[in-house]
């Protein structure tokens, strides 16, 4: 029997859970990079990792109890990562940044999980003894379950979710303000034609670096939300394909629009949770024989859909599911 109630319930629960929030923030970062500044960041997960590790290491390595300090360190890590990647590549063609970011994200993962750094980063197991100071701030009862309609979360989760959505709201306001300002005009001009902007006295390199840092910090915030929500940081979560989930979220919502990552992330989590749960139930209920597919493989099929959707949307609907084609038609490229 298929428990449709459970499936819908799960889908709605996941739609606003902390994972979705992290996706919103990371995709907003890519939106700043690609949607507004035209930068190809294929290593956003590296920024997410930097934020998460910066957050976690503040507690475990520095022994601090200050959540604010941890957030500051997480942001600092993302900024340093952006500088490291941006300074050499932002003078070059766009695809160099793509190559370097995807490679750098893998470097971060491999170094974080490496044995020589086990005493610091926890090696392949990662960090999981850092959440105490954050939990202490939680006004909700960590153990009890709070709920409304189909949504119900444990107190520890609810705290992260509330902070996360407040953060998303602030970031939306921030990006909207920036993109309606002369700063945003310069950044968009650089996306359209870098030389035109330079010929008008704009230091394209410096603006691209600023955009890379801003988007990277948003990725870092996503990492902190994940670290707080999971109460753990695992290096192998930060593998290269994750970045493209964020890309898909952005393209689902429509590139270059402030709200699109929110729409995209919620949509993504509803769809994916639905497919995943339905698939699992179909298999375990015996509708699909395990010789064809077993439950662990359902998560792999999720990535088939991600890959295909990414390619198809980019070609046929770069404006997103709900976007209009008009603005895109102006694109001479």
């Amino acid at each position, binding site marked *: 029997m298929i428990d449709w109630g459970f499936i819908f319930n799960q889908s709605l629960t996941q739609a606003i859970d902390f994972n979705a929030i992290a996706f919103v923030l990371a995709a907003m970062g890519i939106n700043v990079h690609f949607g507004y500044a*035209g930068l*190809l960041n*294929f290593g956003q997960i590296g920024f997410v990792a930097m934020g998460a590790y910066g957050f976690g290491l503040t507690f475990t390595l520095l022994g601090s109890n200050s959540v604010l300090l941890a957030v500051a360190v997480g942001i600092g890590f993302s900024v340093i990562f952006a500088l*490291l*990647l941006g*300074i*050499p*590549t932002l*003078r*070059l*063609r*766009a*695809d*160099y940044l*793509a*190559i*370097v970011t*995807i*490679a*750098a994200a*893998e*470097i971060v993962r*491999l*170094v974080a*999980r*490496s*044995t*020589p750094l*086990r005493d610091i980063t926890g*090696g*392949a*197991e*990662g960090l999981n003894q850092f959440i105490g100071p954050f939990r202490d701030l939680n006004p909700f009862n960590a153990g009890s379950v709070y709920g409304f309609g189909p949504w119900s979360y444990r107190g520890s989760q609810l705290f992260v979710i509330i902070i996360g959505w407040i953060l998303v709201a602030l970031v939306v306001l921030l990006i909207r303000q920036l993109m309606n300002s002369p700063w945003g005009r310069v950044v968009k001009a650089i996306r359209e034609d870098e030389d035109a902007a330079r010929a008008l006295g704009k230091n394209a390199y410096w603006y691209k670096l600023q955009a890379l840092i801003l988007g990277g910090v948003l990725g870092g915030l996503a990492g902190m939300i994940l670290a707080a929500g999971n109460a753990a940081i*695992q290096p*192998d*979560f930060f*593998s*290269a*394909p994750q970045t*493209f989930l964020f*890309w898909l979220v952005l*393209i689902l919502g429509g590139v270059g629009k402030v709200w699109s990552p929110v729409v995209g992330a919620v949509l993504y989590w509803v769809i994916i949770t639905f497919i995943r749960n339905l698939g699992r139930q179909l298999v375990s209920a015996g509708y699909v024989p395990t010789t064809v597919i077993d439950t*662990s*493989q359902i998560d*792999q*099929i999720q*990535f*088939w859909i*991600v*890959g*295909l*959707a*990414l*390619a*198809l949307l*980019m*070609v046929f609907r*770069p404006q997103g599911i709900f976007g209009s084609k008009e603005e895109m038609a102006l*694109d001479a*490229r």
Partner: protein
Amino acid sequence: MPSVRPGPGPCVYALAFVTGSGKCGAGVHRSWRPAALVASVAVLVLLPLAALGQEEESVFTQLRVENEEGERVPVEGVLITVTTPDEAAVGQAETDTEGIVQIAVPGPGEYLVTVDAITLPAGVFLRDPSRTTLSVNVLPGQLGRALFALSPTPPVDAEGGVLGGRINFSGRALAQLTTEGLKLGLFLAMAAIGLSLIFGTTGLVNFAHGEMIGWGMLWAYFFNVYGFAGAFGFLSGLPPPFGGGVNLIFAIMIAALFGAGLGYAMDKIVFAPLRRRGVSLIAQLVVTIGISIFLRYVYLFAFGGVPRFYEDYTAQSGNEFFGLITITPKDLITGTLSLLILVAIGFVLNFTRIGKAMRAVSDNRDLAESSGIDVQKVIRFVWVSGGALAALGGAFLGLSEVVGFNTGFRFLLLIFAGVILGGLGTAYGALIGCLIVGIGIQVSTLFIPTELKNVGALAVLIVVLVIRPQGIMGRRERIG
């Protein structure tokens, strides 16, 4: 990575719990009875122990090594890591005073157990340094047991004494690692040519190139192990080469052919139409990413997450050259072959009509088009030959390393490093860059832990972009 296979000979097992697909030579069991005997005794002794943790599934291993008196003593303090097939961490622990590690796993299924060779105490070596990771199948409510063969002496035919950890510096080790690196570099270069030519002729950086490499590797594996019968079930009754696996040499040839087919299909079905529609290069680049992810997870679905080896030519003992370096016949042959192929590519590019056309298109597409070259045809040719070369490179890499669903992607990052080092879009630059990266990776293990050797190559990529972004052979006009 070294490619030492255990040969017949004295082989001391840590513990002879063999379930899952521990592959340390069934033949070895037969040829050396005492190990099997010790094993069966150990099974009896440890069965009750194993029964203790029955409620939950876990992975279990015990490391023991033979001392001078021939006693088997436990090895303490060795780090064992358990991950899922797609490398998600499950648990990590050090062996206790009994040399035992038991790590709980979330449920039944396939897991990878890795021994961290650096943490092995002095005087204890892995019998086969390349087999630091084993696959273990954990059944519901049971222990999955991993078997690591340890030895008190360094591996007999170790190429440069590669032990998974840092390597002691010696002229011999340097020579050996340089040879290994040269081989790796040649394979990378062969796989990279396609990437470089596609970039040169279309301006597209193909992020799916790693999957084109994996494609060749996996088809070579498929035909080597399952043969035509794997594809056409009705053949299964027939004798080889139709019924079972075909010899690896033929399997690799078929894989190269399939690679050409994939290249053709990608251009015909995807990129030629996109060029016709005038889709921007950036959008095309995102499309290559989509294809890359799709294919990688199709591979995972079809192949599984556990790295495997070809059936043929895995265990070869090396021949010594100049009293300095040891090379296995397979490495010698594949290395020479790839060198010949690279020379042939150079010849084609310089002296044939199609080669000149390719260079003309790379140099200036519009000029080439207006001087009567069928640019679309040239691009199609580049995709087809690039696909074949990537597949061939992948198949060779599978022989010297492991066959895995994401091996291609790992190599893609190294190829990026090589291609950027040499100069993006230049065929010779790709060759030189990849050779430097290959040698650099292997020789770097003299100074840094082997698990970080690829990180070094990727870090070099960033340094190159700071110092000389156009690479060794590139022109600065191309990069800005």
